[in-house]
């Protein structure tokens, strides 16, 4: 049984953004949005910037920003009794009381990232699928945890059937059906690599890397299938007779749940669409650009602004800007609350290491004695973070060519002030 241990990392703050127009984009994440859920006028998202955000769907405002996981927030779920759940790249499952500053409960670090979360009918348990093929069942009253090895290799999707059986898909090309006690009760072989799974009116909807969306009966029998594209499908969601599927090129299909007849096709225009959520009125798409967009499920029309400015457009055509592109995945150059997976680099030169307000630095970084300057930034990329800032969470990055290091430093001198 996992118990709550000391929670080292959390940032919980109110209202990041104010959004007057119903239907506008949800802006606040600083990296690809990989997890989405909607319920009763609220949305919950998780992203590469290590944050989960609870949104008011009416105003478009971020009501609650939680920063707890070390790494990507990979799965989110609404729970009963005003509670939320998040799962992360750190393998942890956290249960939150809405508006609390710390999780009510969190599992210890895991050996594999959480791939999916699904709430059992009745709300008594939360199932979590992991990228090493395990499924864990968390009792939401006593917070006891049991798990089984459900797949060989990565688990790619998880969902509860209305009768409380749990369905999962994995890269072992298997669809597995478990009872409430995680006993395997049915199994079916899949023709290709499944990338995500959802439950649509008692049937299992699975999207595949070959571009197909297939429906299966709870016993694993193949029902209608539809080849939507020749590009991999990576996300699927369903709500009351509507199924949505998304591909890596940002195309999203809205289909009839019964026969997969196409209702609408949308080009989200935000890079790969990594996550989807549906309610009675709107489709939400979580994109590679860090924005969450909203679309009418009836017409596919975009709800809200169509001219969202691209954040961090610093491309001045220089070699330094080219090198910066890799940094921009984790760092912003904007002032204010613009920390992502890494801190904002606005006004970096002259700043002592580990001191940007609002960013939860690792202890290893806080213990270092470095003042960021053109010389120390160049040294960081000459030797790499593993040698220069050992123990930090920054992925190992080196620029072996001194011209690239000089170009990056010159770019930062121009743009990061």
């Amino acid at each position, binding site marked *: 049984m996992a118990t709550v241990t000391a929670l080292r990392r959390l940032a919980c703050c109110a209202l990041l953004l104010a959004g007057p127009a119903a239907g506008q984009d949800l802006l606040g994440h600083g990296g*690809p949005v990989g997890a989405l859920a909607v319920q009763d006028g609220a949305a919950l998202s998780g992203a590469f910037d290590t944050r989960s955000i609870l949104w008011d769907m009416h105003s478009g405002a971020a009501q609650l920003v939680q920063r707890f996981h070390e790494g990507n927030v990979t799965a989110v779920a609404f729970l009963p009794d005003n509670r939320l759940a998040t799962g992360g790249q750190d393998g942890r499952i956290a249960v939150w009381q809405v508006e609390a500053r710390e999780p009510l409960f969190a599992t210890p670090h895991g050996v594999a990232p959480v791939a999916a979360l699904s709430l059992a009918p009745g709300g008594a348990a939360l199932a979590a699928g992991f990228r090493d093929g395990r499924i864990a069942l968390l009792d939401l009253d006593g917070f006891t945890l049991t798990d089984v090895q459900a797949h060989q290799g990565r688990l790619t999707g998880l969902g509860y059937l209305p009768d409380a059986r749990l369905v999962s898909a994995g890269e072992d*090309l298997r669809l597995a059906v478990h009872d409430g006690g995680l006993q395997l009760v049915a199994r079916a*072989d899949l023709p290709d690599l499944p990338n995500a799974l959802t439950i649509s009116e008692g049937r299992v909807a699975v999207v595949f890397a070959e*571009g197909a969306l297939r429906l299966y009966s709870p016993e694993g029998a193949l029902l209608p299938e539809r080849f939507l594209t020749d590009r991999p499908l990576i996300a699927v969601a369903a709500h009351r007779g509507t199924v949505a599927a998304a591909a890596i090129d940002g195309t999203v299909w809205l289909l009839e749940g019964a026969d997969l007849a196409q209702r609408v096709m949308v080009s989200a225009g935000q890079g790969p669409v990594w996550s989807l959520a549906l309610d009675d009125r709107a489709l939400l798409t979580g994109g*590679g650009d860090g924005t969450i967009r909203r679309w009418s499920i009836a017409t596919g029309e975009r709800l809200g602004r169509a001219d969202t400015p691209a954040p961090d457009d610093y491309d001045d055509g220089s070699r330094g800007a080219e090198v910066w592109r890799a940094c921009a995945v984790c760092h912003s150059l904007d002032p204010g609350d613009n920390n992502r997976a890494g801190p904002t680099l606005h006004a970096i030169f002259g700043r002592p290491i580990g001191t940007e307000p609002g960013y939860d630095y690792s202890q290893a970084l806080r213990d270092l004695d470095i003042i960021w300057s053109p010389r120390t930034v160049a040294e960081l990329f000459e030797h790499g973070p593993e040698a220069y800032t050992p123990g930090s969470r920054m992925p190992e990055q080196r620029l072996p060519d001194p011209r690239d290091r000089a170009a990056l430093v010159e770019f930062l001198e121009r743009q990061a002030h």
Partner: protein
Amino acid sequence: MARMKFLCDADRCIECNACVTACKNEHEVPWGINRRRVVTINDGLPGERSVSMACMHCTDAPCAAVCPVSCFYTTADAVVLHNKDTCIGCGYCSYACPFGAPQYPQMANFGTRGKMDKCTYCSGGPEADLSTVEYQKYGANRLAEGKLPLCAEMCSTKALLAGDGDIIADIYRERVVTRGYGSGAWGWRTAYGETVSV
């Protein structure tokens, strides 16, 4: 230049896992990572088939399309490689890959992201050919030695073929005509946008 491809003849694969072992040994692939794996569908049932899966070096590689730091590149032989100095270990390529190819080292703490590792078609990486650093980061570079990937070379039933796409497709066609059946070149439509017509 040749257009290098893999072809797995699922009617011949006997799930011996020699390809997996050969790959792991040749490249000294770290613990927890298999660049190649064998998946069996309909296990123990009529119609059972096994497929040896790894990076197929796709024509329009989805991994490259979603990589936020553009660490992928395609060689003159049409092999899809990546630069580990640029990779940030974000994992998005693994969601996009139709073949489950990208692998990540199992870290004690996932807050530290490891670099992605995958099949290189035995052709190293962006470092100098046959250099020590190339071997340490990416494994052996058999193509630079004029050899084909070891997984296919080791395959006892020649289920796994590697080489120029036109040549291995001809070999497969001839087999299907001779034996009178063939379940298709697994993954070819997804990877290369075409099938092997017989």
